[in-house]
């Protein structure tokens, strides 16, 4: 484990370069280029905002900001795990022809979507300004939340990327899971929308406390609850460890299966 950390650290500038060229590739041949990073969440926001305020009459305070924060963070997770999942397959040419620790590829895949999230967060703060809302002092907790989200996404990506090499239909399965999770989490609505009986099950999903804390510290000027934070950090850490162990086991024969 220690050896891997140093290996990844030594390759940090490669990881960064890989992620940046991935971004370049993602927006090639498109007129708006990087602006899609801003446009995409805005368009999505508009649609959802109209649906939930006009049709469902949501009563959440600062609902557009609430929704936008939820979307940005969820996008990071969904996109990150999808790019991360495909990273080994996409870079199979590289992996079968040169010696490259496979972790590097997964890491840079998650990093690509992390960069996209950072762009989207800029949009978020512009929006806050539009609403005339100043960032509260509790916002100093946001960087921690962002890091937790990154690590959580990485943990999932380790499992998914190596498993996908062996079972290609994981791709479709994961898409369905993401769809279901989108509605089973508190992205567009609050936890109170769920019947009381299943609320504790819903909050087992680490995304739920993560969104909760992130919104509280950026919009509502509320410090996070200690037990929520502890739960979130431990789940994230366990996910990373379990994910990495599975990755290492599957990694042994990965070149042959590619």
């Amino acid at each position, binding site marked *: 484990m220690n050896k891997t950390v140093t290996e990844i650290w030594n390759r940090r*500038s*490669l990881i960064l*370069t*890989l992620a940046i*060229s991935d971004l*370049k*590739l993602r927006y*090639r041949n498109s007129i708006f280029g990087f602006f899609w990073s801003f446009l995409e969440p805005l368009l999505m926001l508009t649609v959802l905002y109209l649906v939930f305020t006009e049709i469902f009459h949501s009563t959440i305070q600062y609902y557009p900001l609430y929704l936008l924060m939820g979307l940005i963070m969820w996008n990071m997770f969904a996109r990150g795990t999808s790019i991360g999942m495909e990273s080994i397959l996409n870079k199979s*040419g*590289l*992996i*079968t*022809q*040169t*010696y*490259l620790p496979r972790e590097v590829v997964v890491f840079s895949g998650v990093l690509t979507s992390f960069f996209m999230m950072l762009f989207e967060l800029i949009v978020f703060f512009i929006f806050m300004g539009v609403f005339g809302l100043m960032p509260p002092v509790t916002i100093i907790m946001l960087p921690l939340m962002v890091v937790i989200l990154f690590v959580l996404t990485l943990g999932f990506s380790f499992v998914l990327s190596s498993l996908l090499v*062996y*079972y*290609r*239909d*994981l791709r479709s*399965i994961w898409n369905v899971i993401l769809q279901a999770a989108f509605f089973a989490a508190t992205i567009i609505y609050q936890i109170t929308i769920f019947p009381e009986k299943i609320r504790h099950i819903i909050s087992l999903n680490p995304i739920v406390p993560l969104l909760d804390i992130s919104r509280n510290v950026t919009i509502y000027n509320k410090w996070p609850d200690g037990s929520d934070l502890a739960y979130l950090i431990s789940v994230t850490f366990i996910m990373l460890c379990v994910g990495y162990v599975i990755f290492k086991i599957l990694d*042994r*024969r990965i*070149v*042959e299966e590619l």
Partner: protein
Amino acid sequence: MTNDISIDVQNVYKTFRIYHEKRNSVYEQISSTFNRKKYFEDFPVLQDISFQIKKGEMFGIIGLNGSGKTTLLRLLAGIMRPNSGKIETRGKVVPIIALGTGFSPDLTARDNVILNGMILGFTKKDIIKKIDVIMEFAELEKFVDTKLKNFSTGMYARLAFSIAMQVDPDILIVDEVLSVGDVPFQEKSFNAFMSFKKRGKTIVFVTHGLSQITRLCDRAIFLHHGRIHSAGKSNEVVNSFYRLLENKTQTDTGEIISISRRYGPQGIIVNSFDNMIYTANLSGDSISVVNGETNSVIKNIQVSASPRDLIVNEKTNQIYVANRDANSISIIDGKSHELSSTITVGEKPRGIAINENLNLLYVSHRDSNHIFVIDGNKNKVVNTIPLPGSALGLVIDDRTNQIFTTIPNLNSVAVIDGNHNNVIGRIIVSEFPIGIVMDKINNLLYVANRDSDSVDVIDIKTIKVIKHIQVQNNPFGITINPKTQTIYVNNSGSNSVSIIDGSTQKLLSSVHVGNLPLGIFCNPLTNMIYTVNESDDSITVIDGKHHKVISTINLHSDIVTN
């Protein structure tokens, strides 16, 4: 691993999973757990591969498609891991396997160079500094900001190659590179390799261009069905490749000429228990198995390059074959007649003897002044005995555990103490001693001296030559019937066998056999003597009672299965 070794490969095995019906989806995986049929098998890609590459050496790997070359390169580069065995490399390794596969066609040449350089271990700063040099070497200066999808295959390859050359690794692993690019670029790459080599870097090189191997490489190995078929100097290995695959050979001047498919048997041994005769066919890279009852060929077993000599352990019924050009010993199971294992020995093994009591094998070498001692139980080299010259014939006295070996170039027979594995004496004999045999009852050794057309008789007790018997031209192999104490000598120059009486050490008679008789062996139980004729691919059978040729076995005759 000593300092001058840059790559050390030991007993490497690699298997691939071959799916009968690849289950790549979860549904198929689940349904197959109920359906108990085994859906994959492990296919051996590389078996028992051992070799060492010295620092500053250019090392070639040749073989047909699917022989395991690229897999071996990937193992050396650390891309894959072997199932068992050990691979050690010293210094930075850079593989160039399938050029340019790591490139992104939608990025510019500049971006790709940066990315590729960083993958190969450059820092971003360093690679940016080198972009101009790389583009210049690749002759692509004008296209530095062109997207790679507009490049031709040749341009791709040139770019990839130029990057790799700038990395300046300690070990460069190259797969089929010189075949891409135009002639001037090939010349340029060739020069780059040579300057690389001059700076003491190691290059491992796979190609189908055999002339490149002889031109560039010092040494090479030839992979055949995942095993090392031959190893050694590159021109010799290329020769064995031609011989096996195309019935062709390369002359000293580099021309390729056709030869007729021959066995060229040189060694022969008989298992007296089951009356099976085995010949080592040096040119055919095979062992012929002959049933001594019916004198019919039962099987031809393909072994590694140039089997020169062989021995049977009658207790365990295993046959050990010294493959001269593969630097290995093949072990054949005497019952199933299947290849069971190989042991790597020194350069050009050519003689082999066994001490059945201790189950120890002794192997003499042409290009190494050592006798290798192999433990027959563990199939491992347990000792090496240094000699004053390169040895050929071997005989063991299992009562005193002494080994006697002929050293042709020094006109002598060395006496080795088998307990301490050192030379304890040397006897000067006539010119170029080859075959050696022992008469245990009279305590005498008989040595066939090829260049003096004679047999020297040595007294084991006094370690002195006591008699000099003149035979016919170029005596080579020698054998004894321990029951009748009759000695048989092959005169390879006059196509005859001289028969010597062991009690009087007098020439009794001689019989005419086939062309170029080399190996000879006696089955004391049936009192039959078998001599193998190199030029005829045949065995002449002599009746030991009447000293008459009774039949000739043609090794090419149809194989009879019983």
